[in-house]
């Protein structure tokens, strides 16, 4: 077992404990915080895979923005200081069934696909190559621009919705 294995197991434990905390916690705010733990675990995976940029973006976007958004939504839509919620509601059979089916499907896919392995080391300037391929006409310039326009539309929409009449 190499160092990477040990680190992988620790990170998996962090991500899984976080995920379990999200579903099993009785306080919605604590669930949101466990979601942050899970996000940090995933950022750790990216660092393990030598994708520092993705790890930082994961922290910045998911922890710094999405988790905050979720916490704000929880606090604005419910009584923030409210007593504990129930863990299960009446739909737990259906929800559990869906989760089991999804899990079985994912395991089936993961064990069936023949994952290609690249022997070469990770290039040192991976960020530059990522940036170049995003604006390269032969690369991903079209999806990149479409995503940009989509984000712009969302931004304008948000401004219009939030504007006072």
């Amino acid at each position: 077992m190499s160092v990477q294995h040990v680190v992988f197991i620790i990170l998996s434990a962090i991500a899984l404990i976080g995920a379990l905390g999200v579903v099993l916690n009785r306080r919605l705010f604590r669930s949101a915080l466990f979601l942050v733990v899970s996000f940090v675990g995933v950022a750790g995976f990216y660092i393990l895979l030598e994708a520092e940029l993705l790890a930082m973006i994961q922290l910045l976007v998911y922890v710094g923005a999405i988790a905050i958004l979720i916490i704000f939504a929880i606090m604005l839509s419910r009584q923030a200081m409210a007593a504990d919620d129930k863990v299960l509601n009446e739909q737990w059979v259906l929800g559990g069934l869906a989760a089991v089916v999804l899990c079985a499907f994912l395991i089936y896919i993961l064990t069936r696909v023949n994952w290609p392995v690249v022997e070469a080391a990770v290039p040192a300037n991976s960020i530059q190559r990522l940036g170049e391929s995003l604006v390269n006409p032969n690369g991903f310039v079209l999806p990149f621009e479409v995503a940009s326009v989509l984000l712009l539309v969302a931004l304008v929409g948000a401004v219009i919705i939030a504007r006072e009449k």
Partner: protein
Amino acid sequence: MDYVLNLWVRLATDVYQLFLGWGLPEWGAKLIIDFIIILILVILGVLAVIVLTPMERKVIARMQDRPGPNRAWPYGLSQAFADAIKMLTKEMILPRHADRLIYTAAPILIVIPALMIYAVLPFGPQAADAELKLGATNLNVGVLYFVALGSVASIAILMAGWGSNNKFALLGAFRVVNQLLAYEVPMILSLLAVVVLTGTMATQRIVEVQSIPYLIVMPIAALTFLASAMAELNRSPFDLLEAESELVAGYQVEYGGMKFAMFYIAEYVNILSTSILFSALFLGGYKFFGLEKVAPVLAPFIVLGKAVSVFFFMLWIRGTFPRIRLDQLVGLAWKFLVPLSLVNLVLAALVVKLSANNWVQAGLLLLGNLITVAVTFLIMSLVERRAKSGGSVVMSEAQNLTPAAER
């Protein structure tokens, strides 16, 4: 002589060889060296509290024409130690019905990212013949790392506000997070201008590439960064959450003793790291008229000296400007700093495309910056004139647009 001039790197190399001589494997020796470096950086961060708080009190006192702390020996300079002893001896209090886990975890979680930022700060040039350098690591995403860890703090603040089981603490937390989110945008945009110009996000490399300090080349980016950094740090005139003369202490209201001290420590640790980053990105970091090449041993002191100068500048602003209102605060970010830094970013991108020569780039950027500043002032004076000649809608717009300091 050479040993003295390169003291830090030589010392680290010698200790490394010593560990190898003891029969440690290479990775073990590296691990211990890294651990020592991390320990030094953490201690440096915590030392910031002990050095910067007396400095702040004394300087502000001098600006306000009063003696400031003068009881603790000598000249009140050891006031920080007295404060620390007082904090440590206080009782640990848990508010009734507070969430114990979250209440206790928040002060810890706010210090950790603050200290982690020190990993990417450059303290000296890379030695030519050694692998070692001053500073913990040279991440190629250094600038992004700084921003990402800064954003983690807002989670800790929300935890503190919610965990205290106090409505005022929660509202205070909302206000701070509102401020942090608003000022993150101009901060990232001004950092992006530097990244576009240098073509790298590694802080070490940015200092190396910087032949003229970017404060002179890109004053807009530098000042936008400084303004948003001061807002992120809750420094006056953006210290709405604390406003010690008007409000209770915002999200920290239920914290006392050492837990409160943790927030205090995090604040000053963040101030020092932001000042060091500002000096690295805009003041040339460890460069000081070629001195760092002659004597790399002085490089960390140059960095710290520049950082303390930046801190002094912040104190100067604190002693000069009145506090701004919450709506002015958010308006300043979204209506003034964001458009300005966007223009600056486009400018930087254009200049990089136009010329590859360092000096031509600097000249063009400076010219563009001056034009942008002139146009900004023109627009602002036009808006103000329109506001004076009537039109109530424009009036409120203008008040929000103009920073409080300029009115």
